[in-house]
């Protein structure tokens, strides 16, 4: 076990740029952009710090804007206390807080973390792509730079080495990106909640927002685990090609997965949606985009009995778990095992 952990530490150090630095940099950029957008969003809405300062000093009318409401122009204004008021065309003035009913606020508590998650998931989405490149080079690059001769002088089996590369790149790499995504989500959601408070919307419970965020994370973590299971045969294939390919392992691994079905479509496809050959040829690509596990997962938010939107965690986890009942999942795992073993055998029999 100590050897396996050492191999993982080594592989993480080897691929630090792609697996560790990249998600952190993407998260940092996103957070900076969000922070910037939060501040400049105020400006676009007529509430930039300069305008607000002007309003505070009773100089001019910069801290307000006119929007088109259903029955005429309404004036949206930021008061001296920073809170927003809306004056309707009939002259009635309400605070923004008064303009939003409690049910909508409750809905916001569910929708807000989903909206921020859509942005925060970017590091993970990019990690899903970047690990394919890292994996394609995993067993190829050590032959290319001849370091395989050093690592093979260590008493470690080829199967251990190959498995450790897969675990470190796919497992640790993806779940580190998930951790970064969660931290980013906390930050962006926190910013959003603070912004709501800042413009005077009360009654939004940060605790409820973050509880809903935690629900999303649990779905994301379980979903990622199941996704890795579905995509494992593709990862195994890429690892095997990496062990074998004399050059350009990424092209060698992915060209057959996309070129063959495209060629088939060009030559033999007659528009039949149930073309079993074509479906089989697209199967690896489908697994990579998580198609088998996301069927029926379109509803992330649904109204509860009292018509307040909610995140149905149990149902979502149930739907994800149901995909494990498909024979294709377990057949895929067996195929993945075959590819991983083949990769280790290729590595065992050829040093360079």
């Amino acid at each position: 076990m100590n050897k396996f952990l050492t191999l993982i530490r080594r592989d993480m150090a080897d691929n630090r740029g792609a697996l560790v630095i990249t998600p952190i940099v993407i998260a940092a950029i996103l957070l900076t952009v969000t922070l910037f957008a939060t501040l400049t969003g105020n400006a676009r809405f007529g509430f930039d710090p300069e305008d607000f300062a002007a309003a505070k000093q009773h100089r001019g009318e910069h801290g307000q804007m006119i929007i088109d409401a259903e029955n005429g122009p309404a004036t949206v204004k930021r008061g001296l206390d920073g809170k927003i008021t809306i004056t309707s065309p009939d002259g009635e003035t309400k605070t923004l807080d008064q303009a939003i009913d409690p049910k909508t606020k409750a809905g916001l508590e569910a929708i807000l973390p989903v909206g921020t998650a859509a942005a925060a998931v970017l590091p993970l989405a990019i990690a899903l792509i970047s690990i394919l490149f890292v994996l394609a080079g995993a067993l190829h690059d050590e032959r290319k730079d001849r370091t395989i001769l050093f690592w093979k002088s260590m008493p470690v089996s080829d199967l251990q080495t190959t498995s450790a590369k897969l675990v470190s790149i796919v497992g640790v790499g993806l779940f580190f990106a998930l951790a970064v995504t969660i931290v980013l989500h906390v930050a962006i959601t926190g910013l959003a909640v603070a912004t709501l408070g800042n413009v005077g919307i009360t009654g939004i419970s940060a605790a409820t927002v973050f509880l809903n965020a935690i629900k999303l994370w649990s779905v994301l973590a379980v979903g990622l685990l199941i996704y890795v299971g579905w995509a494992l045969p593709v990862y195994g294939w890429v690892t095997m090609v990496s062990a074998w390919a004399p050059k350009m392992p990424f092209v060698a691994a992915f060209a057959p997965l996309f070129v063959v079905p495209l060629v088939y479509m060009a030559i033999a496809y007659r528009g039949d949606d149930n073309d079993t050959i074509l479906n089989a040829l697209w199967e690896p690509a489908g697994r990579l985009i998580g198609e088998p596990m996301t069927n029926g997962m379109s509803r992330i938010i649904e109204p509860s009995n009292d018509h307040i939107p909610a995140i149905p965690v149990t149902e979502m986890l149930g739907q994800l778990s149901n995909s494990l009942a498909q024979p294709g999942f377990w057949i895929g795992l067996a195929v993945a095992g075959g590819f991983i073993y083949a990769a280790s055998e290729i590595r065992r029999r050829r040093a360079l």
Partner: protein
Amino acid sequence: MTEVLISAKGLAKNYGKKQALKPTNLEIPAGRIVGVIGANGAGKSTLLNCLLGLSDYEGDLQVMGMNPLMQRAALMEQVCFIADVATLPRWAKVADLLDWVAGLHPKFDQAKAIARLKTTTVQLDSKIKALSKGMIVQVHLAIALAIDARILVLDEPTLGLDIVNRRGFYDAILSDFFDETRTVIITTHQVDEVEPILSHAIFIRDGAVTLDASMDVVTERFLAVDVLDNQKAEAEALRPLYGRSLLGRTTYVFDGVAPEQLKTFGEPRRVGLADLFVALAQ
């Protein structure tokens, strides 16, 4: 009886139609320093790769009683090898590399490696890519010498190094690794440099072993003598392996001819491995 560490019977390796190593029989006991000598592409590295389980092969091969191809991981607890100076991961820091080797090799003494590196100019927090060739060899050597192995295999270990580093390298092997229970196998082009430390020589030519003998046997069996032009016919009657004319004299190399017979031409002398290699290549 001396323990045999490496035993090969009919060991061969083909790359497609090319026979890189022709069927070879070998027995290498403990307590030897073996030089594997041959031209580029002769099959030296192929032989070492087979011994180290780095490539598949035909025939029977036992290293430390193990099948190298099937039991490489277990074998590497007993065998240490340095392929050449360019095999350490350039992206790694020296200290990290030592940590990983400590985690991977149960017979690695990390403190010993660090102590050795502290006597050099290598900084532990340096990256390998920031080190000179000589420093990289120091790191590799520190790792290899801190592993309690029975067999040390060196495949052109000093390629590209200057004379000072080359000599220091072999001195360290002799003083810090070699003893009667261990064996060192070296392939190198710099035959003259390793010759003084070798106890055994294996010549390979076109994938075939042309000589497999201890240095004592080489010294007894092969003799060279300078012959004047008027004695050439007489000397050639003794069927020398090789003759080289230079400055009015011809140097002949003989195999298995008694020194007394050769004394009629001049004082017979020991043949250097480089000359012997050329002689056997004729």
